[in-house]
């Protein structure tokens, strides 16, 4: 069966057994057209992602939860959000885990593939946005390859690089999401919980997009170039 699906191009990495239904859904996702990154921010759909992980090393950490909030045409709708909790965080970090949520969302391996497929369905081919995107991307790519045999090849935008460029007067320090949230007065429902952080990050994205547009950086592609240029400058320096 794996040779067959490889022929169809749905799967990048062989060796993961999926049901026919899962293959079909995954194939549908694969065949979605790529997002047009040259449309205005206000005609685009961004998916803002946040994850919780067991450690800070993306190559070894276990994924504990994923949350995503869409920014469509510059707006956030509360009906357009996605979350998956794989494992409750250690006690203390998350003081009030709802037992109901834990029961339905902590998953056995069998349905994890379904959940990840549903995640891809939510994301579509939209450009992904995160704060410290590299870590999030690495972790997600590893998880998706492991459980679905899929290589995630979507455009990513990293607010940790974009924001300092747009707001040069703000001294947020490297990798300080809290500093940015505090600067813009964005309150989090529950800090360090993936969904809350995804919503807060989505609001940062709204601010970033509005200010970028004022500087003529008015498409996802332009934002990517901005990020690339800054990375290039700082990493070669």
């Amino acid at each position, binding site marked *: 069966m794996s040779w067959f699906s490889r022929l169809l191009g749905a799967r990048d990495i062989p060796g993961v057994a999926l049901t026919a239904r899962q293959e079909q859904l995954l194939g549908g996702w694969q065949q979605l057209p790529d997002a047009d990154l040259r449309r205005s921010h206000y005609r685009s759909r961004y998916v803002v992602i946040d994850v919780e992980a067991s450690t800070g090393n993306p190559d070894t950490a276990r994924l504990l939860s994923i*949350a995503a*909030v869409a920014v469509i045409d*510059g*707006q*956030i*709708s*509360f*009906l*357009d*959000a*996605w*979350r*998956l909790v794989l494992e409750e965080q250690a006690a203390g970090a998350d003081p009030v885990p709802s037992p109901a*949520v834990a029961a*339905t*969302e902590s998953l056995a391996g069998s349905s994890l593939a379904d959940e990840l497929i*549903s995640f891809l369905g*939510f994301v579509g081919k939209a450009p992904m946005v995160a704060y410290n995107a590299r870590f999030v991307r690495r972790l997600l790519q590893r998880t998706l390859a492991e459980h679905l045999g899929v290589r995630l090849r979507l455009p990513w935008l990293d607010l940790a690089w974009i924001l300092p460029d747009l707001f040069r007067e703000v001294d947020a320090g490297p990798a300080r999401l809290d500093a940015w949230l505090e600067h*813009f*007065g*964005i*309150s989090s*429902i529950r800090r360090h919980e993936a*969904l809350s952080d995804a*919503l807060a990050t989505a*609001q940062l994205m*709204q*601010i970033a*997009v*509005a*200010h970028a547009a*004022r500087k003529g950086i008015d498409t996802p592609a332009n934002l990517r170039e901005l990020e690339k240029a800054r990375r290039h400058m700082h990493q070669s320096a």
Partner: protein
Amino acid sequence: MSTSAVDTLISACIRFLQAYPPFEQMEAAALRFLAERVRLQHYPKGARILSTEMGVAHALYIIHRGRVRAKSTVGLGSGETTSSTLGPGQAFAIGALMAQRPTFGSYEAVDEVFCYELAADDFFALTQKSSAFNLFCTQHIAGLLKQSQQQLQLQFAQRAAEQKTMNSPLAAVVKREAVAVATTASIREVVELMAERHLGSMVVVDEQEVPVGIFTLSDVLKRIVLPGASLAQPIATVMSPAPATLPLAANAHDAALLMAMRGIRHVLAVDEGGRLRGVVSERDLFKLQGAGLRQIRHAIDAANSLEVLQHARRDVRQLSLTMLAEGVGAAEITQFISTLNDTVTRRIIELNLERHDLYGIDWAWLSFGSEGRDEQTFTTDQDNGIVFICTDIMDRELTQLRFLDFARDVNADLDRCGFPLCKGNIMASNPDLCLTLEEWEERFARWVRMPEPQALLNATIFFDFRPLFGRFNLAHRLRRELFRQTRGNPLFLRMLAENALSVAPPLGRIRDFVTSTDPEHPGTIDLKTYGVRLFTDAARVFALANAVEATNTVQRLRRAGAVMNIGTDDLAASIEGFNFIQLLRLRHQHFEQEHGRPGDNLIRPDDLNEIERRVLKEAFRQARKLQARLKLDYQL
């Protein structure tokens, strides 16, 4: 979509909203509806969130974070703006949204602003779902109405200030050119001149035009007729010498004082050379003071001729204008006009009763239509009838003839006193409207049982009857019988409701108002047909359905509304809407008549200022609400 994620975000949104009015009062289901449908939008510092140029408001804005500066234009052309800053939890564009029009003024982000935005359709759905939210919006609109009424009053106050007051110099008070005769003129000449010009007094002057005497109508009796003086004598022999004079620069108050001190009714205004320049009468001053209600009533009650009544009618107009200027509400003014018109009508009836013997018959004079509802404006024609009791059927024809004779005279006198004859012949002199109690009852019963179009039309005129003179209990009996009929015929009320719905509020989908397509009056709205009628028709159905005896629209709405469980705020809003339309009519009629045109009800929305247009639109929306209630009650 993942339900748990959505639930988390929506609960967070609800928790935020619950910290602010009116959301903290809102029903849980409505709040959830709101949170599910809002979209979070960001506006960078300095961004314009909403302004007039953006066209019809398409969303409700609830500030989530940041501050918004709201600038609104106060009056048309004044360029004056008020500015206020809104913060988290505050909502805007309610008025524009409800009126489905662009906002007045603008909203700008002071810092990084996040707003929850609710699309117009969802906003209207929410007003349906949540009575707390609906109340909030209604109160918001009521606030707008109040603001506008204060503006109207301001306008009239300015106008009143331009008008003459008791501080005006006599030069401004004297109207007509002084008519004077020389001392040598004969009594005959003087009396003939007075009769010809309808003058109550004549000033006698010397060669230098200096007044030396005054001769009044009452002197004719005392000094000429009774002593049998010769009419050939010069006027100087019978005039009152040394008349009271004041310089032209003296003010009206001085004149009033002089009259009171010397017990006289005329003061002569003279220039520096002492020459006659005019006559100030007690009546002139009376008008300046703005004759009080009691004085006018007194004058009417004491009137023994049609002329006095004609004067009184003018005083009524003058006084109602003053009331308009002083900011008295439309309800009070129309009620006031009706009361005084009633008094005039009663006096005319009394005067005619002296010539028509109706002794021994029980009867009552009835008013219909706007008069019956106590809602007369400056232009009103007659709508009246007679009900009488005829104990012997053999006498019926003869009795009716006597009443018709009487009614013809009353109708003619009313016409002379400024109540034009009714074009539709809805007058007591019409044999169809001069009927016995049984005939009226039978007629009403027939209309109720067979609600054909003409019967429904009749109902809208005649069911608003009110007794004006005679045996009021006849009207009361008639009303009870009417309720008995309407209670037993639900179909009639349904048809009447349907009839009331035949005219919709002139609110446009694209433009603000739907105006007349009549080529003679393009761009106008008839505020009678498309304004007050919407309210009076609905109120009539409410009143008949709930056996409310009142005929006045406001009273009907209040009393029936209480029985129908219409909220007091909703009720207040619809009454204010009705009163606002009446106020616009009164103002318009006054303006038209001031410019020598017959007062009509055709308003040009384009001539109104921004707030007035906005409030008029709200008023129509209130009418639409009443109609919606009719539709609901009668499943139409």
